[in-house]
């Protein structure tokens, strides 16, 4: 008897709600695997009627891991809509908060969400394959991981008064300047943060060496790659133009993100609440592209901080300069970005403008429409608002980071399922691998569907008549 459909519910150690169904062929191989993103909240509708300047406080509630991305993208959209570009010190401060977020989010993902797979193994006992298990088996690393996250969160707290959903950026700038006490406190933590990040890099490189076979067959496929860049195409996470390169790394487009609608469209599938962004000129699905660490590091030519750049060169050499396609290399790319962010914190704090109190431009002219773009930890984030003459929102459009990776995640799930699953034998560890395909993207599914969810993990194997043949659940007591 061969299973008709395998269901994995929920995908754990990700942010958000996902469910995977694997449709089987008669010969026991995988026909197709689907990643269903299973929730929807509706920010694009219910923000209508609120004020433009409230969006930096409302939209962070899309996501509690990367609220700062929304906070800043909303402020930037407000800057654009109200024609009030922030003074340089305010931009530096916003970027500093953003680096704090990159560090805490990437750090948490590598060590606490993905880490258990890498450090304890895909096939380890699910009961301990988590951050608590890490605390018990590798306490040193666990403590360092907690401290790295704390370093990032602390930056956010010092600037915005809270770690999650800070109150800091408003259209035209920010509401609080940096004082020397806070600056010095942050600087004092940089060395440890660098060390922990380097430790993570060592872990992933060692792991890669030992698991090269998996890396080569685990979700490896071509796509385009997209991210913000500096004028000379270096990695840029706060502000810049958007660069899209093709599967060979050749530039297809470089544009001001405010014109994103000329280049990007979203496709809807009936089986997922998450839409599928793609490059319009190439159509769907030929025009799909990846974002986030893997996508960004394929779209840039260098990184302008030294330690990260050194690691970047080593990383890009893996495929002889051509883009890296392997899903599992997301983890390596993620740490390189973390290194960049920690170095960038130091660069920003040593810029004397960041201590200035010239932090708000109150000269506003309502243009009626504005776009704010930023690189969230998981990818390019677009906030697009239309408002009436009084500054009340009439239309809101969001393309949220992880959403850009939707097609790739689905492809990775399908690819990994086909590589590792045969209908006659299903082990828990292989289910975990399919989930790991999603996990590598560090998806923020709350964000991407402007919604969140979570479901229990049960695997049911049914025969052609739909009779239950086998039921596997992850640690659900029988």
């Amino acid at each position, binding site marked *: 008897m061969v299973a008709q459909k395998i269901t994995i519910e929920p995908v754990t150690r990700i942010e958000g709600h996902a469910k995977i169904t694997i449709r089987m062929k008669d010969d026991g191989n995988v026909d197709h695997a689907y990643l269903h993103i299973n929730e929807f909240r509706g920010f694009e509708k219910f923000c209508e*009627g*609120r*004020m433009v*300047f*409230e969006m*930096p*406080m*409302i939209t962070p*509630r899309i996501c509690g891991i990367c609220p700062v991305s929304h906070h800043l993208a909303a402020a930037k959209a407000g800057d654009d809509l109200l024609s009030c570009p922030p003074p340089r010190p305010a931009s530096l401060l916003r970027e500093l908060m953003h680096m704090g977020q990159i560090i805490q989010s990437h750090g948490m993902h590598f060590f606490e969400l993905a880490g258990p797979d890498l450090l304890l193994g895909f096939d380890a006992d699910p009961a301990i394959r988590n951050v608590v298990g890490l605390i018990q088996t590798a306490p040193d690393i666990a403590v360092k991981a907690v401290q790295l996250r704390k370093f990032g969160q602390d930056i956010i707290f010092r600037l915005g008064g809270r770690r999650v*959903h800070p*109150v800091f950026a*408003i259209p035209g700038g920010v*509401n*609080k*300047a940096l004082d020397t006490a806070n600056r010095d406190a942050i600087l004092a933590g940089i060395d440890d943060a660098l060390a922990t990040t380097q430790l993570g890099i060592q872990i992933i490189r060692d792991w890669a060496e030992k698991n090269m076979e998996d890396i080569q067959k685990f979700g490896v496929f071509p796509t385009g790659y997209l991210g913000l860049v500096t004028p000379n195409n270096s990695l840029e996470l706060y502000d810049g133009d958007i660069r899209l390169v093709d599967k060979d790394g050749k530039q297809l487009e470089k544009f001001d993100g405010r014109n994103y609608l000329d280049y990007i469209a979203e496709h809807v599938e009936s089986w997922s609440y998450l839409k599928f962004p793609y490059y319009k000129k190439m159509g769907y699905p030929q025009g799909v592209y990846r974002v986030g660490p893997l996508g960004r590091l394929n779209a840039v030519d260098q990184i302008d901080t030294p330690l990260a750049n050194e690691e970047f060169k080593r990383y890009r050499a893996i495929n002889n300069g051509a883009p890296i396609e392997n899903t599992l290399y997301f983890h390596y790319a993620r740490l390189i970005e973390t290194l960049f962010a920690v170095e960038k914190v130091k660069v920003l704090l040593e810029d004397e403008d960041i201590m200035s*109190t010239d*932090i*708000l431009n*109150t*000269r506003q002219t309502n243009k009626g429409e504005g776009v704010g773009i930023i690189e969230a930890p998981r990818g390019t984030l677009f906030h697009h608002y239309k408002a*009436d003459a*009084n*500054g*009340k929102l009439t239309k809101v459009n969001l393309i949220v980071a992880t959403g850009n990776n939707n097609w790739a995640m689905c492809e990775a799930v399908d690819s990994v399922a086909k590589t590792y699953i045969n209908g006659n034998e299903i082990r828990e560890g292989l289910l975990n691998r399919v989930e790991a395909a999603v996990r590598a993207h560090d998806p923020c599914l709350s964000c991407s569907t402007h919604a969140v969810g979570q479901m229990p993990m049960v695997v049911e194997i049914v025969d052609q008549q739909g009779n239950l043949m086998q039921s596997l659940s992850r640690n659900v007591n029988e």
Partner: protein
Amino acid sequence: MITLTIDGKQVEAKEGMTVLEAAKASGIHIPTLCHHPSLTPYGGCRLCLVEIEGARTLQPSCTMPAGNGMVIKTNTETVRTTRKFVLDMIFSERNHFCPYCEVSGGDCELQKSAYEQGMTHWSFQPNWIPFEVDASHPYIIMDQNRCILCRRCVRACAELVGNSTLGFEERGAKSQLIADLAVPLGESSCISCGTCVQVCPTGSLIDRWSAYRGLEKDVESHPTICVGCSIGCNIDVQTRNNSIVRIYGDWDGGVNGGVICKVGRFYPMTDQRERITSPMMRVDGQLKKVSWEEALEAIAKKLQPLAGKDGDGMAAVASTRLSTESLHLFKNIFKDGLKSSMVTTTEQGVNTSIFSKVAEQLGKPFEAKLDDVEKADLFIVVGADIVNEHEVIGFFVKRARLENSALYLVDQSTNSLENLADGVLRAESYGEIAKGIKAAMVKLGLAEDPSIQPDALLAEAVKATEISDEVFMKAAYAFASAQQPAIIMGSSVSEMQCIKEWVSLSEMIKGSMVTLKGGANSLAAAQYNLDTALKVNGHQAAFIALGDEDPTEKFNALFEKVSFLAVQATYVSRLSARADVVLPVQNWAEQNGHYLNSDGRLQESIAAITGPAYAWSNQQVLESLAKKLGVEAKSDWNAELHNRQAMVTIQ
């Protein structure tokens, strides 16, 4: 005094106090929401309910008069449960989203009340029927979703400001705050004073320019004086990181008691004028940046040879927004030192000089204090617009209407308050009107004045003004029957004799008379004799200590033919663009100084923020200039305020 028992404690209270006031006076805390010390008690929110022995139900302590022998319990199980229930009901009525609200985290009295009662959640969910946000107003956002129907704003708009724009429509669960007859706030009769924003306990009424910039716990408070006009309201300028976040009226302010107008509250928040960022000098037709030394040197070199010259010498003009110290030093330099014959202010004495002369002729002050005006039961507004300028006096007049005060307007043309007036006396000659009323009063036996021939005088007045004798007599009755009449006179009254008639009428009706004056230090300028009309005729040089004032085109035009123009100013203007030397100075919020308000009160304006490094204070500029010119700066600015008979008693 009466005695009552609150929570087992014997408490003394004054007759007429409410239970809430009696409790507060003896240190017992009863939570409230709709209550506000500056507004009449309303009893709408029910949070202040207490147990009163003998009463069938719990009673609102904010409206319940304290009675001798009352036994009150404020903290029983019943009372505590009821408070939570009241708050539950309030939260269930509208849509309260604390997470992103501008006042959440310390400035929301509703949130604080809930925490005080130990509430971790609401028992009843709202029905989530949305209310539209009214964002039509340039300063004030009205979000009905957060309204708790406490009506503080309605009371403030009526009782503190007398505008009565805000009201309520519908009843019960459909009750809703509205502006006028339910029009968007931005299209209503709202005068943008912002008092409603200051009293709103939640984030329902907020000021869009302060949103998210800092809660009260984040900002620094700077009690100071508004320099928008001669009233000199007491304000609190709240700052964060050296930037003004919001401006509040000071509830304890002796001048204004907490109310301020849009000029003081909102204009500074939206001031986008470009600043002058360096001393500059005209070189080859272009203004170039120079050092302070060079600029001051150039001015001194130009002015010194003109000392003592008359019509072909120098003219010097200062803004009445400058402090007394600076106006005094300005006078030292140009009048006493350089002996210019054309030294005055941008106001040119139009608001004060004739009144100063009247006082000098009378040999005594004839004006009363603003406090007297505030308590009046009859307002006679003569030749003044108190809707578009000196608005806070307008608030006193309009709000007194709720106490059934009367309003008479005496004006040559249409006055904005006509729809509120009990009578309007319109004629060219204000003096004749005064005479007519005096005559009518004596004729009717309402006053005695042997120097007046009532019939003849009345007939003359009727002929001169074309106002009938019935109208005069009606006015006379109204004026005579008032317990505390007040006369408010504006600067359009410009004839000495006419003013004296009104002073005499004021004495006849035992009234309080005030004149409006003009800018913040208008009276100080008058006291320093800086109140002449500006005539620029052949003057070779002019020095304008403009400060942060905005010069009018008419003013700028006066200096077209002056060959050397030096301007000391904060903001770029057509005048500064034309100048030969420009000196950048701080604005009102960045420097200290004294101000003599319109009823003679001497107050200090204290800097709330540090100005940019490139700007000096007005005082510093004048001191340096004095030094360069070799003029001795005399420091007795306070004493000199008393050198001249003023129209009001000066502090």
